[in-house]
């Protein structure tokens, strides 16, 4: 079994996950646990924004970590950040699911809180707005949604996001700008109508 060394840490450069991945390749459960707690919420959030479905988002997160377990021993530090690679795997898994999906739009609102409780109106409005934003996101092309999700919701740096999407920074910026315009258009039509009701 190969031991990770100080050299590995050096080879990993600024990637904080390098040592963890090498330990995972050596079968260390503790390293797997640390990687999961470090990245699971990010993978779930990204998949949720891409798919608009909680259960599917969890499935995608599971797929990503299964892939990590299977390929950790092949990881070569220094090429790209491991987190960027994980995002790429998650995005590709989401694209696959979107391709398979017949219907990508849903009118269902999340479960309403108790409408008699204090501040219930505000909570309902916030929940509805939140749902409208998710619906608006789901109306964007998948690549624009992925770009917005990585840069705005995941707060990833533009270079890392571009790498995760396997595109140039210029192409990423184009997706972001078009995504924001699309979002504004959709929200202008639907949120205003909802608030007027």
């Amino acid at each position, binding site marked *: *079994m190969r031991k990770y060394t100080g050299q590995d840490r050096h080879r990993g450069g600024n990637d904080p996950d390098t040592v963890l991945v090498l330990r995972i390749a050596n079968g260390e459960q503790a390293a797997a646990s640390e990687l999961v707690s470090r990245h699971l919420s990010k993978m*779930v959030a990204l998949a949720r924004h891409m798919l608009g479905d909680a259960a599917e988002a*969890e499935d995608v997160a*599971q797929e990503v970590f299964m892939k990590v377990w299977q390929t*950790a021993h092949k990881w070569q530090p220094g090429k790209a950040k491991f987190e960027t690679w994980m995002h790429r795997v998650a995005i590709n898994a989401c694209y696959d699911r979107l391709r398979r999906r017949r219907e990508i739009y849903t009118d269902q609102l999340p479960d309403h809180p108790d409408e008699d409780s204090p501040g219930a109106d505000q909570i309902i409005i916030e929940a509805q707005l939140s749902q409208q934003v998710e619906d*608006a996101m789901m109306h964007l092309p998948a690549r624009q949604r992925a770009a917005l999700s990585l840069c705005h919701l995941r707060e990833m740096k533009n270079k890392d996001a571009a790498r995760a999407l396997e595109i140039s920074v210029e192409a990423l910026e184009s997706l972001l700008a078009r995504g924001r315009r699309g979002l504004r258009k959709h*929200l202008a039509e639907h*949120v205003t109508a909802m608030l007027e009701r």
Partner: protein
Amino acid sequence: MPLAMIKKKFLHLSQTYGNAIQRWPEDVQESAHAFLQKHPDLAAKILDAEKDIDTALASAPRQEVRPALEAQILRSFPTKTQTPVAQNHRSRRWSFATLLWPQNAGLPAWGMALVLMLVFGFVGGYTGYAYTLDRTSATEVLSTAFGSDDYFLFGEETST
């Protein structure tokens, strides 16, 4: 740089990355702050125009991770004997199985095919040649090839 050009770039960045300059690419943040200080009203107007989308994006649903999901994922982590690295180390040991299929010993499938072709070519070549000779000459050929004196040649045992 002329104001019109700086304004155009500032506008492009705000329409791409939103109204929070700290989210813009690091290499433009300094010049963006300088523009904001030099032309506060114009810069604020440009940034405000993007505020609604940033607010909307901030209100996108956040999904909490269920502890059960984390446990489920960790259960899928292979035990030490199942990890690919452990498998590689185990399979690299030479054994009867690796003699039958050397791919386990690091020899690829095409390597195995090449070895088999050489072996069969060698055996076939000598045996075929032996069948074209009389008994004594054939036995000599086979003896030279395989280093033994006893063979079943033409259906009957022979020795030199």
